[in-house]
């Protein structure tokens, strides 16, 4: 017996004890791995930001157009993301996986900023190319993230962004906005809501499987 009263000799443990311990190990390892996956709110936030930017650019001709719409909404969304992320990850553990995913999405976000601002202010803004480039970058991040997580659903979401990028090259006028709006609604907002529902279900399940005090 150890100091906690647990039998330490293998022969003194029965099959139920052993199975319980293996299940405990598995559930705790899962808890450690899963703790960094809940970013549904971020997809929802950026989906709404994109919708606002596109709607502002396309449907409010006297509102400053894309030169105002995109910088303001993207900066606002970035500040919100940083603030919410800091609050939500304050007590969360870090892992190689979380760092890798953060790197993918941070690089994508920086890439969009590096691309979008100069294009918006250079006078070389061309709607089809601009939207297609944004959609390609979103697709890259989703596919990279989904490949890393071995999550087919996210890879499909990324591929659908690439489909939207191709479609953007062939539409004119407000059609570009409609393609992007449809893609954003499904692949950002829909995906974000799905992740948030999954998160609340996982948390409810985890609450029901708390470890007994030793």
């Amino acid at each position: 017996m150890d100091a906690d009263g647990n039998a330490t000799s293998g022969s003194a443990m029965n099959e139920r004890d052993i199975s319980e311990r293996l299940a405990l190990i598995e559930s705790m390892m899962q808890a450690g791995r899963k703790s960094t996956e809940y970013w549904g709110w971020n997809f929802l936030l950026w989906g709404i930001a994109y919708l606002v930017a596109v709607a502002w650019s396309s449907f409010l001709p006297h509102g400053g157009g894309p030169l105002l719409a995109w910088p303001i909404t993207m900066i606002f969304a970035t500040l919100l993301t940083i603030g919410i992320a800091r609050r939500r990850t304050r007590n969360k553990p870090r892992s190689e996986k979380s760092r890798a995913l953060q790197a993918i999405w941070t690089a994508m976000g920086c890439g969009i900023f590096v691309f979008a601002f100069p294009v918006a202010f250079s006078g070389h803004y061309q709607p089809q190319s601009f939207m297609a480039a944004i959609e390609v970058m979103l697709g890259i991040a989703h596919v990279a993230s989904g490949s890393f997580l071995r999550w087919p659903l996210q890879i499909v979401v990324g591929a659908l962004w690439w489909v939207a990028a191709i479609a953007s090259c062939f539409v004119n006028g407000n059609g570009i906005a409609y393609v992007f709006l449809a893609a954003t609604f499904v692949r950002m907002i829909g995906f974000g809501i799905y992740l948030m529902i999954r998160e609340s279900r996982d948390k409810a399940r985890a609450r029901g499987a708390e470890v007994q005090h030793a």
Partner: protein
Amino acid sequence: MPELPDLDPVVHGKMRLAVLSLLSGVDEAEFTWLRTQTGSTDGNLGAHLLKLEEAGYVAVEKKFVARKPMTLYRMTDEGRAALERYIASLKALLGKALV
């Protein structure tokens, strides 16, 4: 009859086993997160973490972030090896693979 393996008494405690399993999946974790995941109290968890630290299975780092104290725990190589040995011993006892 084959000899049944003795189990590492440091790892064998349920709370310590839970903590090591949690730490095995992350680089490092805060004390508050470990407490939430295990449903333990500060004192109980602290005592078990001290035992793991004394055995060399976890390393602790105390620092201040935005003037707030933060205690981070990290599994050591010895801790990882001890957990792997423990799992292997359980599997040998049970005779089936961990899914």
